[in-house]
């Protein structure tokens, strides 16, 4: 087996050095009834060629988003990744290293994460950010639990414009962790008045910007209402590229930003691994979940980096930790950081403008299709269409024409008949004129 260096002679010599007669002697503590005598009922070892062939066959059964006109978003966006991103993250020193608990031999990862924290803080307009979470949905649930700790309250109000997966994950935590999650009705037009629902028990209000249905709102007034009532405002961002164009959550007065950073540096990957972003105000830093990298000096007075404030974390505090989280999304954070570094200030702003412009063009073309209207008064790179019939079947028919024509709202909000005809559609810098034209034509055909 190509990954196992020991030879039969090695094994025998090593058993002799240990002083046992066979490998079975080293498994002597296993109860006899639990010993597997033979092999599990699974295929035997295979070479690279055979494994690659088998997995390529599976991959070949999927419709590759980049091979067809694709307008799917809903929290996961297809952007162009500069070639150097994937090259650099495959350097073995990044790919095959552990969590940087030994800082003298992990300054590369630590400096990178310090830079990542700074990039996220700048983009979100917040003071501090952590070294990443599993994904946007878990980051959202952790943000609510942090707000509960900060305020000593146990009721979260979740916007109807929050991504349904984020709502669901937060609700699962609410049931088992022990807090209330009040879910507002899905709100395609972004007309809800959450400020009116805040009461003395409210720990936080969670909104998403741009919202699940694509609407862009300024939540400054809601932030004020939260603060007046002693609650926190959590702003979720799941299209991180929007931060280059839309007013930042920090500028609106957000207390915590929970986001999905996949758009920077990370492929679609069928939904994972992705990159949870988490940023907040400096005064709440000791209530944050997740790893943090801080600046310090070494024994010779040189600048360096370490994991810090780990007294919040499970490996030190055990049952008193702020979160049970241990692993983060280090390599995904690296990919995002490289992509943001390549873009730079000018590139991030240009990328956002390009995404917005493509979406505007797309919206104009699709709104011209008979029977179709755009629900949104505002949007960034994704918006909601109202179709004359249920969107799910339309999307299936578009797929048969080799067009990935967005996400039916009913896929994520089932059992809401009022949403059945709504279709979420996204454009990015990867959307071409030809793609947009093909989509508009196919949609008209399917609806005619």
């Amino acid at each position: 087996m190509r990954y196992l260096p020991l030879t039969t002679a090695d094994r025998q010599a090593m058993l002799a050095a240990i002083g046992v007669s066979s490998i079975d002697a080293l498994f002597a503590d296993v109860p006899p009834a639990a010993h597997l005598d033979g092999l599990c009922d699974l295929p035997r070892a295979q070479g690279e060629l055979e494994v690659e062939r088998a997995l390529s066959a599976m991959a070949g059964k999927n419709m590759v988003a980049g091979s067809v006109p694709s307008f799917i978003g809903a929290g996961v966006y297809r952007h162009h990744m500069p070639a150097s991103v994937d090259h650099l993250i495959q350097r073995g020193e990044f790919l095959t290293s552990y969590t940087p608990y030994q800082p003298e031999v992990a300054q590369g990862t630590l400096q990178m994460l310090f830079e990542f924290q700074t990039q996220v803080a700048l983009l979100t307009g917040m003071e501090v950010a952590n070294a990443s979470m599993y994904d946007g949905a878990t980051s959202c649930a952790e943000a609510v639990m942090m707000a509960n700790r900060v305020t000593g309250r146990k009721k979260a109000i979740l916007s109807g414009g929050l991504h349904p997966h984020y709502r669901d994950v937060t609700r699962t935590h609410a049931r088992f962790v022990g807090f209330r999650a009040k879910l507002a009705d899905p709100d395609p037009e972004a007309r809800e008045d959450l400020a009116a629902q805040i009461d003395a028990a409210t720990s936080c209000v969670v909104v998403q910007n741009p919202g699940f249905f694509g609407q862009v709102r300024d939540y400054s007034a809601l932030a004020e209402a939260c603060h007046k009532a002693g609650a926190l405002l959590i702003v979720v961002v799941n299209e991180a590229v929007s931060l280059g164009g839309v007013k930042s959550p920090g500028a609106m007065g957000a207390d915590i930003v929970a986001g999905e950073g996949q758009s920077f540096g990370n492929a679609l990957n069928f939904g994972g691994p992705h990159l949870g972003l988490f940023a907040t105000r400096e005064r709440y830093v000791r209530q944050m979940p997740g790893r943090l990298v801080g600046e310090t000096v070494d024994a010779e007075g040189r600048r360096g980096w370490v994991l810090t404030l780990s007294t919040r974390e499970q490996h030190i505090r055990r049952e008193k930790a702020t979160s049970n989280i241990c692993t983060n999304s280090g390599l995904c954070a690296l990919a995002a950081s490289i992509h943001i570094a390549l873009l730079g200030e000018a590139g991030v702003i240009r990328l956002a403008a390009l995404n917005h412009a493509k979406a505007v063009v797309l919206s104009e073309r699709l709104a011209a299709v008979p029977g179709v209207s755009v629900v949104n008064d505002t949007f960034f790179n994704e918006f909601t269409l109202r179709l004359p019939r249920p969107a799910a079947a339309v999307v299936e028919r578009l797929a048969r024409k080799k067009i990935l024509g967005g996400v039916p709202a009913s896929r994520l909000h089932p059992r809401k008949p009022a949403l059945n005809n709504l279709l979420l559609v996204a454009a990015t810098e990867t959307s071409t004129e030809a793609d947009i034209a093909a989509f508009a034509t196919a949609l008209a055909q399917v609806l005619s």
Partner: protein
Amino acid sequence: MSDWSQAVSHFRGDGKASPTLSGNRGLQIEEALLFEQHAPGRTGVDLPEPPAVTSRLGGIMREGPIGLPGLSEPQVVRHYTRLSQKNYSIDTGLYPLGSCTMKHNPRLNERVARLAGFADIHPLQPVSTVQGALKLMDTLAHWLKTLTGMPAVALSPGAGAHGELCGIMCIRAALEARGEKRTRILVPESAHGTNPATAAACGFAVDSIPAAADGRVDLAALRAKLGPDVAALMLTNPNTCGLFERDIREIADAVHGAGAFFYCDGANFNAIVGRVRPADLGIDVMHINLHKTFSTPHGGGGPGSGPVVLAESLAPFAPTPWVVHGAKGLEFVERAQGAAKRSIGRLKGNHGQMGMFVRALAYMMSHGSDGLRQVAEDAVLNANYLLARLKGELTPAFPGTCMHEALFDDGFLKDTGVSTLDFAKAMIDEGYHPMTMYFPLVVHGALLMEPTETESRDSLDAFIAVVLALAKRVKAGDAEYFQGCPRLTPRRRLDETVAARKPVLRWRPPRTDRQAAD
């Protein structure tokens, strides 16, 4: 002061120890922060001019600059290449972190995870267009269920601790379904920190059970703690002392006899894969770290993946989504309704860590049932070889053989002035990543070494020679040497107290720049 001299002041520190003007030391090259390499307007990506359109942002636009630096592609490539060279990695050398299973990461797995048919598919595409992806998930589930003997698996948890959360939530849901409110979870003192943190996060009181003198669970103490208010036992097996819990069947019987569930932390599954099925040990639920046993890369701290295998009693409570065989092919069950109405609901966005699933399945298919059994055997053999060769100079924490990792206490350092930490830092100068230190907590000054099956005998011999030589050096009375280690790394010991007292968690422009900007 020029930018260069300012940067160099970071690199040379007090300058006393720096043999060079720049702070560089041959191939160890100092690297400024991205933010210190900025020039306005510079970019590493050429993007076209956006088409002219009427904005639909409703005037809710970013005001003022973001503050990100501008660098060209060559600068960025050099920056990250230099940073990478400051990291130790498995590719660099033996990485004996106990409990972390730092084994070789095959590059085939990287290649197949990047196939467009896996990497460039959207989680919300119509299910009819991603049948291959569901097939991959279904196949991975089959391998995991077969290797553990368990009837069900939840693939979505994002890492080991997330898998623990999943398992404990399922246990609570099952207890609620039985109409029981149990409030305590038993956790051995030697457990990973995530175990008590998870139990507490789900609202349980954590009750720790002591270890017996042989490093295993004290069965009598466990029995004494069990009662009608105990929801579960969380146990790692092989445990964090690198020992198989030989009373595990009695432990399982006692736990079940008290009406509680048996959670196994599967972090150490590498020691028994293909030789022992957790189901045969009486385990009800176990998470599997794909980034340990099944070799998906650790990536400097993630992403991981933590599927959870479940017994029949807990399977109905598994989180959504999962894959089922339907009339039109494979389908997702995405909502906790109908047949899934008892599910705890969703724990993570989308369907789990697909990129890790592809890598783990490639790893499993490469090894096959025969190779995976060999993995466990070689991992245990390598650890025992270390133990046997080191026990003359170091002090094993427990007598006898071990499983996949060898645990020593700091008895061999007693009265030498050298601590476990000092010893570990000396290993760094010798070109090795240290072993896990001060864990498990039940052993004084613990040194936990897990070589894994992907180290050759030559590699182990070289490592052993270094550890033995260092141990002899300790005994020769050279404490000062150890206390000053490491000396040859890009940075020497870093001041963690300073970092925590006044945390600096992000870069900010130097004062002069800020004043100029005002």
